[in-house]
């Protein structure tokens, strides 16, 4: 039981949310924006969690993480396209039955690509940061182009299934149904990750490995195998995130990977490389920020996130929950 918990970073989230309230004015608008921000944040967290563990555990900079996002999203368009009658139905449970396989297939495909990516692109350059940056970027470009070969270079619409469209009314505020779903899915992912990390031996190994890889090896564990597993899970999660992001925007483009990549990097830098909790906080902050500024001052949306990152780095140069021993 952790006796004293570093609560300050966690407090940033409500501080930001409440701090913006006076600027927005109407509480119902604020509520809508906040839920939207939390939903977006949860989706970003799903994507970022894998990347931060990959870096924390094996010191590998995957600048190509975006390719898994895009792949997942495109796969979903194909799967959902095949299930027209399920998505067309207004029944919520039918819609979920359609979305669920789309998510699973997307995760499986992304995970498989992740396996190949680790084997052929990342493994040869362990320990060489510069080459990792270059090669993973190259890998992402190749991936993006291959997506264009398979699905064409244009944007594809990814409409929400019937039953998930529209909003629920809470007083004056309209809360979109899909966003609630996104928050739920995000929390499930977080809960599963948290459970695995704190209650299983694998989780123990990952947490220890993030702190001191050499010591874990000295204790007799072949951490390289563990790493492949984490990489694949991270890629699968990115695929899931891609599906959700695509549904959030209701369209997918081959460049979406590169676009979301930038946000992901901001999130894991804010959170601290290697920290899942940090990634969650970073993601929520980024999601909220994007939505609040999108409403208040649309032109500076991306800059606002960078400004947020800079401010946090000035406060804690290693991110809000730095992982020790590096």
């Amino acid at each position, binding site marked *: 039981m952790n006796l004293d918990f570093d609560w300050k970073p966690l407090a940033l989230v409500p501080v930001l949310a409440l701090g913006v309230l006076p600027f927005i004015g109407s509480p119902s608008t604020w509520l809508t924006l906040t839920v939207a921000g939390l939903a977006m944040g949860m989706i970003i967290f799903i994507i970022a969690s894998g990347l931060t563990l990959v870096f924390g555990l094996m010191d590998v900079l995957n600048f190509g993480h975006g390719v898994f996002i895009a792949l997942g999203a495109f796969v979903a368009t194909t799967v959902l396209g095949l299930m027209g009658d399920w998505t067309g139905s207004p029944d919520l449970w039918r819609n979920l039955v359609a979305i669920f396989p789309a998510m699973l297939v997307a995760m499986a495909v992304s995970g498989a690509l992740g396996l190949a990516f680790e084997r052929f692109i990342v493994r040869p350059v362990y320990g060489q940061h510069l*080459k990792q940056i270059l*090669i993973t970027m190259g890998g992402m*470009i190749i991936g993006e182009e291959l997506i264009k*070969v398979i699905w064409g270079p244009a944007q594809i619409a990814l409409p929400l299934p019937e039953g998930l469209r529209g909003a629920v009314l809470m007083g004056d505020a309209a809360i979109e149904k899909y966003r609630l779903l996104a928050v739920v899915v995000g929390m499930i992912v977080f809960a599963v990750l948290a459970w695995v990390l704190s209650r299983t031996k694998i989780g123990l190994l990952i947490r220890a490995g993030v702190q001191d890889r050499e010591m874990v090896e000295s204790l007799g564990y072949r951490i390289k195998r563990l790493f492949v597993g984490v990489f694949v899970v991270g890629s699968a999660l990115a695929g899931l995130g891609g599906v959700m992001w695509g549904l959030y925007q209701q369209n997918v483009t081959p460049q979406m990977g590169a676009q979301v990549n930038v946000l992901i*990097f901001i999130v894991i830098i804010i959170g601290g490389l290697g920290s899942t909790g940090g990634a969650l906080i970073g993601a929520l902050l980024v999601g909220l920020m994007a939505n609040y500024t999108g409403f208040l001052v649309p032109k500076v949306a991306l*800059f606002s996130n960078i400004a947020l*990152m800079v401010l946090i*780095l000035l406060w804690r140069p290693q991110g809000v929950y730095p992982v020790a021993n590096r």
Partner: protein
Amino acid sequence: MIKRLLSDDFPRSRMLAVLLVLLLIALAFAPFIFPGVKALNVAAKVLIFIVLVASFDLLLGYTGIVSFAHTMFFGIGAYGIAIATTRMGPTWQALGVGLVSSLAISFVLALLVGLFSLRVRAIFFAMITLAVASAFLTLASQLSDITGGEDGLSFKVPEVLSSSFQLSSTPFLGVSLDGRLLCYYLLFFAALTLLLAMLRIVNSPFGRVLQAIRENEFRAEAIGYRVVVYRTLSSILSALFACLAGAMLALWLRYNGPDTSLSFEIMMDVLLIVVIGGMGTMYGSAIGAALFLVSQSYLQDLLRLGSEAAAPLPWLAALLSPDRWLLWLGVLFVLSVYYFPTGVVGRLRAAALDKPRP
């Protein structure tokens, strides 16, 4: 004299020296050797990229800093000229104002970026520059009043440099002596001067300290060099040269938009050239830029042929489509990083060392 010109940084490989001389001649006489508008465009682009890539190499190869914000300075230089000429008319004063203001902005931004890089770890810094570059691209598209937004700015250059200006009505060796030709040679001499300047910088005591810092920052600091100062200076110099390259670009194209100078593709191209040419060698940017741009322009034609030939197999035709040239470039890139880590120049120099001296 050649020694002084090249700042004692010789090619150190006969093959490389030959290639460089050939390149110099090809670029110097391009309008006469290679007829046609396309060829001249490629040649001008090579000149611009030589400067751009060399400035990036100064930062990456010599100082060891990975920054994805480099194209930002390229864009600032290009927009400087574009905005100034659009607002002030195609005069030399406008060019001057545009150039000076873009250099000033680059200076300040590079200073900030350089100082910030020391506050955070290298990995963070790389990611942050990526974010900043993205943000800048978005900004350029959004401030359409100033920058022309997505459509960019088309503008005229001073009459002397435009095609309507005729030095002489009779063509010389088949090429009309017009303003465009003059513009080309302006670019040529600018590129030559800037490259030689950078050569001088990296071979000076300052450059040596940069390399020391790249190798072992801790030790450099321990010996007494203030790493902060050197890295920031390197950052600024690199940005200023990139800015000048941007100005060259704008002058040649008479147009600038977000995709022309700020796009991610250009950053990737620069990275690819630096890797293929050889990091930490100024000559690498020259050879690399030439190799890369020539093949890029003609690669698409090659792919077109291949795609048409593969028509019966639609999936193959799709893979070979000229629109997918970036795919093959990506593959080339990954392969180069694995098998060609020292680049063309590195390979040539290593080969030269293996040969027994006569």
